[in-house]
């Protein structure tokens, strides 16, 4: 049979892991310089992240960025090659040994729900309590309560094959919640649902986290989902965290092109630095049209950079009103009506295409001469 993992040596021994399992106060997670490799591929690279108790943190990134690996490292399904993962003050994962998942007292919801097809809804949800040797009466009461919580009351005797995807997803959620974990790990739990249901479940999850005070670690590649749910978002790329912060901050102030590109639509426009400076920086785009932008002090005048600005932060004004004012002239190339907004492509003098999103009230025509107003406070400059 499987060998019991050895306890990691060191001052913080695993003797404390019991506390981690039961202690409501212990549900903070400390990830310290963790690296995980699979063969020659480094899935997680020297990654550190602190997650506070009761916090809702989302690991956001494209597939293959290492976010699921990180989640599985937290769950204890694998040991890190380097680094330590703590819950509270207890080191649960080290390269030399890990507390197995079954002794971590966490909950986890998988992308495919993993609802056991041979057990009824009730049996699925009651399993964790059975393992914990909770009495029958209490089990009954707790299962009833949690099914109420996820709106599944009355379906106790159904088998998963008789449930819709959304219902199965909520069974998986109830199964994890009933044991009252301090930490709940969610691996793209909404990605198999249709758009409408996904939106509703989003609300329910957020509400649930608020009510229960459980620490949520949530993995997704959907930036709008991440923004809707999280206290903080950690954007991952190639096994590293690019940026951590509140949704608003990450969206408005991406630290690099990767983050900007991943967090929604963004125009990346070639620009030449005219003057550095956070407040009074200037770049030239679309020929020699100067617009203000926060140019990092490392850049030198004349250097080519990229100006990143989101389509909804641009506005169309009738004509160019002179250099330096922040307006750049161009010609409308394409207009698409999308219901709640109008998506408009404008070609600048040097051929650069810029995407602008407008109120549905505005209806520019293809071929029309316009000017785009750039707001320096809403753009970023990347080298």
């Amino acid at each position, binding site marked *: 049979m*499987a060998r019991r993992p050895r306890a990691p040596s060191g001052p913080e021994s695993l003797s404390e892991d019991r506390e981690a399992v039961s202690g409501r106060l212990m549900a903070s997670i400390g990830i310290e310089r963790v690296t995980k490799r699979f063969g020659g591929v480094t899935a997680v690279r020297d990654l550190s992240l602190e997650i506070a108790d009761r916090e809702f943190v989302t690991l956001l990134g494209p597939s293959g960025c290492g976010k699921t690996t990180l989640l599985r490292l937290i769950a204890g*399904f694998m040991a890190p090659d380097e680094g330590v993962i703590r819950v509270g003050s207890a080191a649960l994962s080290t390269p030399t040994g890990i507390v197995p998942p079954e002794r971590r007292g966490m909950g986890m919801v998988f*992308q*495919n729900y993993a609802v056991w097809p041979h057990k009824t809804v009730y049996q699925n949800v009651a399993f964790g309590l059975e393992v914990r040797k909770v009495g029958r009466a209490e089990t009954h009461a707790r299962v009833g309560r949690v099914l109420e919580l996820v709106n599944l009351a009355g379906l106790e005797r159904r088998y998963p094959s008789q449930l819709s995807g959304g219902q199965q997803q909520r069974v998986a959620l109830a199964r*994890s919640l009933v044991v009252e974990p301090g930490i709940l790990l969610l691996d793209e739990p909404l990605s198999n649902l249709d758009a409408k249901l996904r939106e509703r479940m989003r609300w329910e999850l957020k509400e649930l986290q608020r009510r229960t005070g459980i620490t949520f670690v949530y993995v997704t590649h959907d930036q709008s989902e991440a923004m809707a749910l999280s206290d903080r978002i950690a954007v991952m790329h190639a096994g590293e965290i690019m940026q951590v912060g509140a949704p608003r901050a990450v969206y408005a102030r991406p630290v690099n092109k990767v983050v900007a590109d991943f967090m929604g639509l963004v125009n990346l426009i070639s620009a030449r630095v005219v003057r550095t400076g956070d407040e009074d920086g200037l770049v030239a785009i679309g020929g020699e049209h100067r617009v203000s932008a926060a140019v990092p002090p490392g850049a030198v005048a004349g250097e080519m950079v990229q100006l990143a600005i989101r389509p909804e932060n641009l506005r169309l004004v009738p004509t160019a009103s002179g250099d330096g004012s922040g307006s750049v002239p161009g010609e409308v190339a394409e207009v698409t009506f999308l219901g709640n907004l109008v998506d408009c492509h404008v070609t600048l003098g040097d051929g650069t295409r810029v995407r602008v999103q407008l109120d549905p009230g505005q209806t520019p025509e293809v071929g029309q001469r316009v000017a785009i107003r750039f707001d320096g406070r809403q753009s970023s400059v990347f080298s």
Partner: protein
Amino acid sequence: MAAATLALIVLVLLPLAFLVAGSVTADEGLTLTHFRDALSSRLYVQALRNSLILGAATAVLSVAVGLPLAWAVSRTNVPAKRFIHLTAIVSYLTPPFLTAIAFVNLFSPRAGLVNGFVRDVLGMPALTFDVFSMAGLILVTVPHTFPFVYLLAASALESVDASMEESAQILGAGRWRTALAVTGPLVAPAVLSGALVAFVNAIALFGSQAIVGLPGRVFTLPTRIYALFDYPPQYGLASALSLIFVALTVAALYLQRRYLARRSYVTLGGKGSRPQLVDLGRARWGILAFCMAVFLVAVAAPYLTLLAVSVSRSWGLHFWENLTLQHYRFVLLEYDVTRRAIVNSLILASATATLAVLIGSFVGWLDLRTALRGRKLLDYASLVPLGLPGIVVAVALIQFWLRVPLPIYGTLLIILLAYTGRFIPLGVRSANAAFRQIDPTLEETARVTGAGWLRTFRSVTLPLARPGLFAGWLLVFVPALQELSASVLLFSSGSITLAVAVYNLYETGALGPVAALAIVTMLIITAAIALATRLGRGAAAARAERAGVAQ
């Protein structure tokens, strides 16, 4: 449609109807005496009981052997996985009567090599093992049946999504608890299904039951039915017994289908992830030792024994002192019966495989690509032979063709009919699987581009289905080449087959030639597999090349 229907009617349904008719008629008209005899005579009740014991014990032991191997290969870091897998495949491919003959050479009460060694060299006669017993019969049957459990269980274990088990783990269940509460119930249908298939196959093996059972007076349904064809033949009673046999088989297969249907939930998970392999630590060597033991009993012992017997002048503890190739010369060059048998079996197996795949393609294509009425019925009818043990097919064909004024009894043709009828299900299933993998839009594209039906079938459907059809051909060819249960009742001196020749030689006590012929049989099977694999791969390679040129 008409051709496929006609083939099924002639090959399966009419003989079966005559079997039923024969079981309830006698000289004086309609009667139930045959069934009364079959169910009241001690002779037949005992045979029925023995068949049940054999089937049940074999099924249980097949699980005991097949499940640990499946688990080790699919879920642990046991070494030499390929070797373990090959052990199961080779065990499955080995003709069961060869295993039986080999074990007789090792464990017959007097002349068995192992028994002789234990008795005369070790001086411990109490430790000898009499192969001519129910225990012996079970021992020589399990090597042929455990692969069913192994293959089904391994594929089930591999298709259980890792998250199913991880969910239990994160909820606090340890490895054992997870295995009991989640993995076990999820793979149980596959394991049970494998056990039932093992049961059905075990009770149908005429060869081992005749070779090992008869000398030990362990009679079973097939050997009793066989005995009823001794002069004067009792066709009515044989038909009644056959139908009882069919009932047993069909009941087991019905249960198996029900369990197999429940297996669908193994694949319920969305995008699957493979479970992490269990690190066995030192225990892996224990598991490997178990696998080695299975290899020893199921593969090494039979083959080494047959090889040794085939090259020695006299069998015994000092057999290597008088090596010879005379047995090979005898069966290949001198004895015209065995030479004829080899040619006959090659013709029969090739023709059967081709016919079965052809009919299977028709039935499969009709089922999947047309909306013709009755196509489902056709599909079901083609599976009927699954419920018919080989000897029953023979009895049914005899009943039918003795009453039809066509002189095919005693010819190769009747054996070909028997084989084709028996192996149609394999052909249909392979063809069905091969066509199912082809997206219909590929064919529709051809039609839209202007290709006619035939053109589409020839240049799109067939090339794409070819590897699957080749596999199906092989799947029929191998068992057809070693078929004994039906042939043994249908052959004549002109239409003798390989397996019958082996069996007849064995009956005369010519162990050397038997072993030589057995080895030749295995060589032919190996060569056929190698050839078919190459052809199949060749087709695929040629297609890839064409695709490359097209780009």
